[in-house]
């Protein structure tokens, strides 16, 4: 083959290549995750590459009120971005004045959660997203109707054709909305800046930090690691009789009654009210609860016992917890520009 012919062949190949992948730069641009210092890259479950475009599709779905039966609620109605994607009331309002039975958790760093729901009832975000949409006490939407809406909305339809090469279906819905949620990474709070040597605690915060990580309180036995949780299920003696059986709801194992997934404490000052049922309004109440050591329950964790903290020590811990608020995360996702 002469040089000229090689050149022709090369040109043809280039042409073919460019032709077969139109607009590659825009539609396939991988999403740049704002991965906090010391955090690992979120596990993408190997499902799909997460592209900017898929995240945008998911974000539109997350804020789309058409995904509730009354067209009044979106995911963001109860996972309020400025509250680190949690709700400010104990039990969120569903459609038609209905109420669920648990407090809406923060979605910050949900990408790192090994299982979803406080009872671990859903193994992935992709599976979890279906639940609030279809729950009659939440968005009360018929799942087929929801998918049908997406498939017939010309915008979702076009976007989905470009991003996934298919008309919106359950796959596109669950992957997109999960893709968006996986981008919600929060790990640049004052605490992190202190750890990285870029800021310093006030005296009160420092004392709170010391207490938090001390054997005296044992807070960090469960609230450990970057996300301040070890993802175990614990009964903290919140009640002597639980109306919500917690983990037992999934395992049917009596030893799991009243056990709930240890929540991450990232942005905890914004995620009030607290506990699985939102029964504690303030951080002060929570700390005081742990100080008293909870009520008696056969499944209660051994670590929950009276701590005999002084009032000042309790204040110190609350001050420390406030340093876990990541304002940049809120700005990036709630009022980003």
């Amino acid at each position, binding site marked *: *083959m*002469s040089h000229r*012919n090689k050149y*022709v*062949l090369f040109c*043809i190949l280039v*042409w*073919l290549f460019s*032709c*077969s992948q*139109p*607009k590659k730069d*825009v*539609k396939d641009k991988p999403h740049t995750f704002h991965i906090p210092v010391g955090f690992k890259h979120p596990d993408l479950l190997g499902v799909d590459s997460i592209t900017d*475009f898929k995240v*945008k599709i998911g*974000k*539109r779905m997350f*804020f789309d009120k058409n995904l509730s039966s009354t067209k009044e609620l*979106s995911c*963001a109605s109860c996972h*309020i*971005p*400025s509250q680190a994607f949690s709700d400010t009331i104990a039990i969120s309002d569903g459609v038609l004045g209905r109420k669920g039975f648990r407090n809406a958790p923060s979605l910050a760093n949900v990408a790192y959660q090994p299982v979803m729901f406080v009872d671990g009832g859903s193994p992935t975000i992709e599976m979890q997203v279906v639940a609030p949409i279809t729950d009659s006490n939440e968005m009360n939407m018929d799942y087929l109707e929801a998918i049908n809406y997406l498939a*017939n*909305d*010309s*915008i979702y*339809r*076009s*976007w989905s*054709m*470009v*991003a996934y090469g298919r*008309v919106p279906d359950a796959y596109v819905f669950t992957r997109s909305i999960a893709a968006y949620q996986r981008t919600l990474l929060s790990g640049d709070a004052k605490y992190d800046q202190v750890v990285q040597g870029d800021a310093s605690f006030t005296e009160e915060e420092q004392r709170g930090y010391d207490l938090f990580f001390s054997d005296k309180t044992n807070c960090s036995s469960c609230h450990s690691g970057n996300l301040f949780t070890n993802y175990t299920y614990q009964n903290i003696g919140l009640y002597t009789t639980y109306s919500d059986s917690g983990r037992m709801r999934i395992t049917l194992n009596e030893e799991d009654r009243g056990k709930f997934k240890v929540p991450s404490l990232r942005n905890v000052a914004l995620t009030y009210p607290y506990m699985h049922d939102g029964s504690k309004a303030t951080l002060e109440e929570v700390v005081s609860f742990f100080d008293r050591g909870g009520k008696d329950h056969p499944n209660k964790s051994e670590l929950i016992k009276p701590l005999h903290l002084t009032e000042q020590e309790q204040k110190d811990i609350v001050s420390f917890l406030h340093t876990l608020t990541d304002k940049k995360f809120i700005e990036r996702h*709630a*009022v*980003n*520009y």
Partner: protein
Amino acid sequence: MRLIINILVALLAVFMFSCKEKEDNITQTTKQPQGYTPTPYQLNLPQHFPQMPLPMDNPLTEEGVELGRYLFYEKKLSGDNTMSCGSCHKPDAGFSDDRQFSIGIDGMQGNRQAMPIVNLGYAQKFFWDGRSNSLTEQALEPVRDPIEFHENWVNAVSELQADPLYPPMFEKAFGTSTIDSILVAKAIAQFELTMISGNSKFDQWIKREVAFTTDELNGYNLFNALGGGDCLHCHGGTLTTDHSFQNNGLDEFLTDLGLGAVTGDPSDNGKFKVPSLRNIALTAPYMHDGRFNTLDEVIDFYSTGVHANSPNISPNMEFAADGGVNLTPQEKVELKAFLLTLTDTSFINNPDFQDPH
């Protein structure tokens, strides 16, 4: 060798055909649903607000408003894709800029403060000097302004056209997937028209839902008292602006002619748009040139800093000859307390007004 080339050409033809067919399929599927059936947008006007005179040539639709929101926060509209409208009309600054002068993509500054975006449907003229007659007209300007986005519309439009996000959204909002600058501006205008703030403490007080503190109530009375703060002539009513153009006596010698430079009428020199005071606590700095950093400075100016001999000073500045309304320190505290009740956090935090990208 000729044979090989022939085969390659044939293959090429086949490939191109198949490739083209695939693209056609995509366009076809995207064009398939319903057609142009936009949903009228139900404007959520507070009950104590006057009717909003909406533009006849740009009816609000759900689809147009949504598209406008994407475009409002679209950085592709700026020359180097680093800025959007939201860069200088920031939600947490009441959709204005916390800097005295916004900085464009080339690091250059203008000479006017970015105006807050709030309740714009009641206005007939836009910009501090009123040089635009509609929101659509206004939205065209920052894009091509060399000290702001420094972009030409042909470029901006072709970037939007190439982004798979937009053609279907334009199709749905305007019945065409062919984008042009007017449609972009219309969509942005639609979005901006929905940005209504009417849930401040002041509004809740009007509706008898909350009570004012003594300071706030005294401040409200001062605000409306002739011989008190004397604010009501221009900033009276629920909207806190009469949408007129006035010279409030900032300077003895004008360095910015304002409305006069637009109309060419010397009797308009020094006049600027009377801004809404809604969310005033968030929209610092103040005045057309952002010269005052705090509300205290603003109140001090109206109290003792007014230049009576400023050309074309507004007749509403009744106490200009005395240098202003001469408030006592206590009155200043009260007036400020009232102004702080105009902050509407549900407005600036409304998820419908945030960046969708």
